[in-house]
């Protein structure tokens, strides 16, 4: 009984729930699910350090100057116009700070573009007004689609308890975790944008163009995102939900979705 109670308490109070969707009043980023997002968060921390340094310094100087520049306290302001040392320092220091910010920033930027491993899966995300279509065509033996489905937002009336408003969809994109994916984003009508913040992905869906993004989702979970390019009246109501499942379950999930397809196709 004591063991049971400990387990219950542990599950009640010590479970960690990653933040993979927008939370109300959220200040920071969602938890990272890909190396790209983790790199972005780390870069943000790097830059934020210098940001606070500069902010405090500038505020200090500003407040001090205002405080002491009082017509009664200091009627005669100093008239310094030159100062070689300080001029050199105030040129060198900002350049150094810029360099410290630029180095990790460029490192991340160029590493995001590198495709070092061939992807294992290609998923096409096609934007429509106002829903998404996902195609998994790696398994075709002919020109018919192997797995194509539409993903509509679940309207508020149809939500169940615990689901998120404006974020849930009827058919989620199922991807295997810990697998290199290639996502090809395009649109069938107007520009959209396929964004999943916890995966560090935002890719414009332009009609007539195929944009490729490579991601590696590092943990299983359900990740939410929303359309990020104005696309008409229901732009706010076209969310994206990515469900990363263990790699061994991926095959069965895909084939489960194939059953209704074989009925139609």
């Amino acid at each position: 009984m004591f063991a049971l109670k400990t387990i219950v308490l542990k599950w009640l109070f010590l479970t960690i729930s990653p933040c993979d969707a927008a939370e109300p009043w959220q200040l920071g980023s969602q938890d990272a699910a890909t190396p790209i997002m983790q790199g972005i968060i780390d870069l943000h921390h790097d830059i934020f350090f210098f940001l606070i340094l500069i902010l405090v310094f500038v505020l200090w100087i500003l407040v001090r100057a205002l405080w002491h520049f009082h017509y009664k306290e200091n009627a005669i302001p100093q008239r310094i116009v030159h100062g070689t040392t300080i001029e050199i320092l105030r040129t060198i220091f900002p350049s150094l700070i810029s360099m410290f910010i630029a180095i990790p920033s460029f490192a991340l930027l160029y590493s995001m573009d590198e495709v070092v491993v061939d992807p294992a899966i290609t998923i096409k995300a096609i934007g429509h007004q106002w829903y998404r279509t996902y195609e998994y065509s790696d398994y075709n033996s002919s020109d018919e689609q192997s797995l194509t489905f539409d993903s509509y937002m679940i309207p508020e009336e149809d939500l169940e308890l615990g689901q998120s408003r404006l974020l849930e969809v009827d058919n989620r994109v199922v991807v295997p975790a810990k697998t290199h994916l290639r996502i090809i984003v395009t649109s069938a009508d107007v520009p959209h944008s396929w964004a999943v913040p916890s995966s560090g992905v935002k890719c414009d869906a332009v009609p007539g163009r195929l944009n490729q993004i490579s991601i590696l989702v590092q943990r299983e979970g359900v990740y939410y995102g929303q359309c990020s390019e104005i696309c008409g009246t229901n732009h706010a109501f076209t969310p994206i939900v990515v469900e990363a499942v263990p790699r061994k379950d991926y095959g069965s999930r895909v084939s489960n979705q194939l059953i209704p397809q074989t009925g139609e196709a």
Partner: protein
Amino acid sequence: MAESVSAQTPSLSEQYHLEKEVKPVEVQAEEVEAKEDSPPEEAVEDKSESPASTEVTSEEAPAAATEEENTTEDVAEETPDEIKLETAPADFRFPTTNQTRHCFTRYIEYHRCVAAKGDDAPECDKFSKFYRSLCPGEWVDRWNEQRENGTFPGPL
């Protein structure tokens, strides 16, 4: 919505360890519900079903079973009956984000291969898989129509 991380999260090697697997062949058997509950038993049935299923239809699900190529991923173990995760490789001719030309080029390569080698040449299968993976279905349908009408704007 948010998932809890279990205290018994298996280690990476445990996660990658694949026992006898549930596989897409079940689609043909139409017993997916029951099969999902007892994966170890299916493997035995799977192996005997796969020869039969490959003949059943040319639909997508058995195509997955018949594509018995190795994945490009460094997975610890994988049974040969698993759905193979393989797709068009990253082409160094198209290193940037815009892959429109990549898809178009694969489509043209396939049709040139077919024109040179005939309709059922196995060498052309590779190209057909590539362009199907990369190109949206609507684009492929539109191009097929254009080819039939003789209005395809590409060097076939």
